[in-house]
């Protein structure tokens, strides 16, 4: 071995002092292009968890996962998208489709970790460095994968609509309905929000499939008043429809109406094929033939129970018939719903008021269960001086008169007091009777509890709305057929305890106007006078309304309650759901052994 051989291993040390030939980071970071489709960003506060991203993803790279912070929010599923970057192909279809506009992509694309499970992440919930990245792919403004605007509904022009009580809304044609149905992204947020949990995406799909019979079957699973709700529903479903966030919500109500309008009443029995032949041997009494009572009657009959409905009026429908004018809900549509329910063998005893014609205690003795759904039939009083003037009429009475074919005698100049749906209906009815109408409301238009559509249409039809106007006193006039109203202007003042501003009368800004009649429509309450005092003590009643327990049950063994007299929303769809829910409860009560499977069977 030579000396060179011995020393050669040490020669390598000279390299230790030279510039290295390798680099610490072999790839120099190069930023993605400004619109690069990199890692996802989700603005969780704007996201509503509709799951459209999950549905449209062609690689199944998006799962919807529960995020506690967003659970329980109205119009929000409480879910958020979780991405699997082992599957994502960065196509950005999810971003293009996102109806809330909450999903974007950053221009970041490098992510180094030794833990492969990290590549599953819930955007906007788990911390990432790119969540605040202002660059990356965004859907172009105005670009949508579906038309953001709804198909316009044809309506009678206001000048024509005030000439008659004919229906104002004319309904979709088939081609219009197909186009509108095509906009639905089938997220199902509406199902959770609808009080009756109607299967909206599926019945809308039945339009796309032109299978209207299927649509009708789907609707009757949870709502036996589709012709009615297709016209006057408060449509909370539409208020949460994600398509409405960056456009106009799907016209769910009008699509429901379209389906029902395609089917003749004589075909209902064949299509729905409700089996009511079985006789359970149990009898149920229902007080009130409104939407709550008849909904309960329908689902109870399907379970084979005998049903007798006690109705104080000459016809069924409750406030739908005597409170909603026919230009919004024609008798034919209401009769279509009620007629089918009656055809299942529901007995209705008309002109029979419980407490007067038959005692409540008798119902408890004779029937196995009693469902109370008497609605809100007593108009609230303004309790101002001079209110007992003969020219002061109640809004409910005016609507009842018109529905019953009686002339309400309102005159030519009419004041309507109130901002709810009864006030709007009374005002629009008065216009159809030829009156000049002034609506006085103590707060702002934005505070009106009436449906915004009704407020708008009442204005279109020529009703004048005076806001922040507080009635103070009703006065006699020299003319015998007239009446004067003293009212004062109001200022909206912030409530120190929070909540919406409250109107405060400005006593230096008073006015007196003369009218032929004043229609008071400031609200209505329930009439519980039919209940014996000793039973009232046992029922939970707060501020004139029942407080129902589970399945609409009360503390009284046989008694269930529902509808406007037992809920805070006081709309038809809530009453319908109350009736359905009570039917489940009554069936469980009558068949405790079968209770476990009851929910699925009643439907």
């Amino acid at each position, binding site marked *: 071995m030579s000396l060179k051989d011995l020393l050669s291993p040490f020669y390598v040390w000279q390299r230790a002092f030279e510039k290295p030939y390798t680099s610490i980071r072999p790839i120099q970071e190069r930023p993605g292009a400004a619109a690069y489709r990199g890692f996802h960003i989700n603005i969780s506060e704007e996201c509503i968890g509709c799951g459209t991203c999950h549905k449209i993803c062609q690689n199944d790279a998006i799962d919807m996962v529960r995020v506690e912070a967003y659970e329980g929010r109205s119009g929000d599923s409480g879910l958020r998208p979780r991405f699997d970057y082992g599957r994502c192909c960065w196509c950005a279809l999810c971003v293009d489709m996102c109806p809330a506009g909450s999903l974007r992509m950053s221009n970041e694309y490098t992510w180094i970790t030794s833990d492969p499970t990290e590549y599953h992440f819930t955007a906007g919930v788990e911390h990432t460095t790119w969540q605040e990245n202002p660059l990356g792919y965004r859907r172009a403004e105005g670009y949508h994968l579906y038309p953001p605007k709804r198909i316009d509904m044809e309506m009678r022009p206001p000048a024509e609509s005030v000439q008659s009580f004919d229906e104002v809304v004319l309904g979709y044609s088939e081609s219009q309905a197909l186009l509108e149905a095509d906009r639905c992204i089938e997220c199902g947020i509406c199902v959770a929000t609808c009080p009756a949990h109607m299967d909206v995406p599926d019945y809308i799909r039945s339009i796309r499939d032109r299978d209207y019979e299927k649509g009708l079957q789907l609707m009757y699973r949870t709502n036996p008043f589709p012709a009615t709700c297709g016209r006057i529903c408060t449509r909370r479903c539409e208020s949460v429809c994600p398509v409405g966030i960056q456009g106009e919500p799907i016209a769910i109500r009008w699509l429901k109406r379209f389906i029902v309008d395609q089917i003749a009443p004589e075909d209902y029995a064949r299509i729905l094929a409700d089996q009511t032949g079985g006789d359970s041997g149990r009898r149920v009494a229902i007080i009130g033939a409104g939407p709550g009572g008849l909904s309960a009657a329908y689902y109870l009959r399907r379970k084979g129970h005998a049903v007798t409905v006690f109705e104080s009026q000459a016809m069924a429908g409750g406030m739908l018939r005597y409170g909603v004018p026919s230009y919004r809900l024609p008798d034919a549509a209401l009769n279509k719903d009620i007629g089918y329910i009656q055809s299942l063998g529901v007995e209705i005893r008309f002109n029979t008021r419980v407490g007067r014609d038959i005692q409540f205690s008798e119902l408890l003795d004779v029937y196995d269960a009693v469902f109370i759904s008497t609605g809100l039939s007593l108009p609230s009083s*303004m309790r101002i001086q001079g209110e007992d003037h003969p020219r002061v009429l109640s809004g409910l009475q005016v609507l009842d008169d018109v529905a019953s074919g009686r002339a309400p005698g309102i005159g030519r100049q009419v004041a309507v007091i*109130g901002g709810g749906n009864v006030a709007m209906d009374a005002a629009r009815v008065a216009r159809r009777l030829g009156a000049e109408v002034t609506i006085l409301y103590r707060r702002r238009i934005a505070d009106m509890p009436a449906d915004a559509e009704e407020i708008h249409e009442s204005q279109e039809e020529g009703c004048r709305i005076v806001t922040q106007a507080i009635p103070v006193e009703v006065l006699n006039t020299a003319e015998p057929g007239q009446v004067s109203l003293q009212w004062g202007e109001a200022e909206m003042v912030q409530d120190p305890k929070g909540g919406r501003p409250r109107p405060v009368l400005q006593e230096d800004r008073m006015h007196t106007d003369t009218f032929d009649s004043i229609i008071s429509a400031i609200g209505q309450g329930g009439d519980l006078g039919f209940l014996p005092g000793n039973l009232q*003590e046992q029922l939970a009643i707060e*501020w004139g309304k029942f407080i129902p327990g589970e399945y609409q049950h009360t503390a009284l063994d046989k008694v269930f309650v529902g509808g406007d007299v037992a809920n805070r929303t006081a709309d038809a769809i809530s009453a319908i759901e109350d009736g359905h829910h009570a039917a489940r409860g009554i069936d469980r009560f009558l068949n405790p052994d079968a209770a476990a499977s009851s929910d699925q069977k009643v439907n």
Partner: protein
Amino acid sequence: MNTVDEILDYAIDQEQQAADFYAELAGRAEKAGMKDILLDFSAEEKIHKERLLAVKAGDHELTPEQEVLDLKISDYLVEVDATENISYQDALIVAMKRERAAFELYTDMAAKVPESNLKEVLQGLAKEEAKHKLFFESEYDDRVLMDN
């Protein structure tokens, strides 16, 4: 009534009388659910009484300078009778009117008294009653005037 203690004793007695009034009416109430509502009113009056007892004991101060919102709802409503058939609307009217009468009483008394500790106490009591009136008027605004 010439001393602060005498005035406070009077006000405390008035709150107790109000609590008794609603409790007695609750015992007679016939309409569904009214008993509980009237007992709630009675309990509210007892809270007012406790607050005044705390003032007398020096544990709580009146706030005569505090601005209290006046919704003026009760000012233009008719008088109603506190019968056994009373409705919740009328029960609120009775309550609002009673608080309004108490507010006016202390306000008038304060106006007749020269600047003194006694005047401040009367003004403070008036503000207390104004707050009670606002409580019931807010209830009326929320529950009765929903559509108006």
